[in-house]
């Protein structure tokens, strides 16, 4: 496999967890370099240019959000966060700070491997341009026109709905937080937009999903945001 040369940086202060993560990645997915503090981790991220960062929270010297922000300030490398806390607020804060995925502990090795592979695959894809056409679960979405068709039938979306769908598709496979959606679609009118975001998501789902209460394209990340599933 050509992917086995990917370098993955693991930032974790617990040697046992580092061992588990390393054994999940080597040799099938890639090579591993380890760091046990936030400072040495961010240094390694700059010096070694890894293809992916796995960051465990609860480091002795830096907050996880701070590590994410620091790395994000110069790099687009995918960051997967591991956390034993599993709180919605923490998850949202980390995604806002630039993390790409969040895995609650305890995780299974199989799940970790799947999420690492998904992030590596996503990072290799060309970024979604404004003239992107995609087909998912029977819906054909053309961002350039813009138009949506389900089973050959054109579907009308309002301007706001389009902006929302476009933002989600441009980050397909990644959860876009409520805050990020507000910023992208409404500017920053955080307070008023909250419930209208729900109304518009419902509106889009009712038109583009086969079954709006069993959505397969726009998936809810509870309490955090929404995610466009490009590989349903």
């Amino acid at each position: 496999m050509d992917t086995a040369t990917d370098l993955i940086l693991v930032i974790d202060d617990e040697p046992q967890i580092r061992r588990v993560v390393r054994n999940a990645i080597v040799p099938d997915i890639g090579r591993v370099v380890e760091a046990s503090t936030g400072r040495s981790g961010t240094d390694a991220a700059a010096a070694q240019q890894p293809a992916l960062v796995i960051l465990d929270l609860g480091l002795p010297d830096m907050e996880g959000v701070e590590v994410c922000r620091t790395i994000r300030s110069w790099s687009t490398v995918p960051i997967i966060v591991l956390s034993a806390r599993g709180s919605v607020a923490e998850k949202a804060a980390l995604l806002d700070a630039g993390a790409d995925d969040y895995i609650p502990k305890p995780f299974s090795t199989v799940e970790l491997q799947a999420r690492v592979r998904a992030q590596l695959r996503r990072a290799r894809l060309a970024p979604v341009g404004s003239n992107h056409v995609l087909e998912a679960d029977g819906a054909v979405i053309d961002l350039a026109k813009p138009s949506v068709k389900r089973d050959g039938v054109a579907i009308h979306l309002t301007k706001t709905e389009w902006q929302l769908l476009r933002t989600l598709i441009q980050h397909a496979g990644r959860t876009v937080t409520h805050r990020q959606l507000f910023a992208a679609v409404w500017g920053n009118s955080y307070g008023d937009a909250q419930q209208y975001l729900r109304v518009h998501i419902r509106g889009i789902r009712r038109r583009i999903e086969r079954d709006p209460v069993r959505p397969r394209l726009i998936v809810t990340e509870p309490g955090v945001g929404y995610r466009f599933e490009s590989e349903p």
Partner: protein
Amino acid sequence: MTGVRAEPARRAKPSPATWIVWIVALAVATALMLVVRVRVERVHVALVYLLVVQFASVRGGRAVGLTLAGLAFLAFNWFFLPPYGTLAIANPLDWLVLVVFLATSAVSAELLYRARELGAERARALAANARAKSLEESHHAKDAILAAVSHDLRTPLTTIKGLAHELASSGDDRAEVIEAEADRLSDFVSKLLDFSRITMGTPPRDIQANEAEDLLGAALQQAQGCLEGRTVNVHIESPDALLFGRFEFAQTLRVLVNLLENAAKYSATEQPIDVGARRMGAELQFWVADRGAGVAEAERDRIFEPFYRPRGSSRDGGGAGLGLFIARGIAQAQGGSVAYASRAGGGSVFTLSVPWADLEETPAAG
């Protein structure tokens, strides 16, 4: 707490002693001025009375102030406006003096009373703020403890699961059992943490206006595993109307998932499960109905007790007996409820209610 309760008591009713003190004060002032009646002008009398009325309002409250204003009005007329010793008034201009005096003293009594109340209100608000702050701090402390416990319990479980996986790949079939048991323990840890959060009274953090279909969809997806191979019918009342409730999404989702899992656990696989959302007055309700055996009359309250397992359910069922207790705790913490009803034709209906949210509350923006 006690300081705040004492506040309204102090402003409620002046004591009889207060009344006596201020009426005596008015009498003394009148007597002193009577001695020098020939030399004082009406304006001096009015000023002295005004002073007494205002002090009485500040010290004794509105009722004392207004009563004294009335008494001073009468005394002024009786003793200091000719003809003396009657309530008649010779000079029409004296009417003006008297009426202005009465109005001034009544208005100042009222203003002073309000100023005092405002002060008391501020003191009460400050006390309430301080209490809210210390409550908030104690909730933060609880959160921090639970986060630390969560970390200390889940991190070793991660290692155990990881090592079990390594063992499994080297062909040891006991590894699968280790991983499954670690999962069971992890589930139990989550439930115990929830249990602590509820019994400690930690308030929900992120209550927002959320939409019913969004929650139903997320619940059906999360319960996918245990609903596999089943028919699940979704009923949404008046599909064109927006169904909005005020609740914490992630927590409420867990309640609904728990109800779906129970429905799957306690009814046969070939029986369909019905789930729906509707508005009921000031509540948004989610209901989950199965065609299982239902819950016996005697057990209907007990199923919501912690660590309770229904009669005849096996200990290996994986349940800690905390699911419904946690479900009800989460619902109640955000002003809602979880209730059981037997279903016509056999089975159970569990209803999760949360406060209804009107979308018109905030102006539209796009």
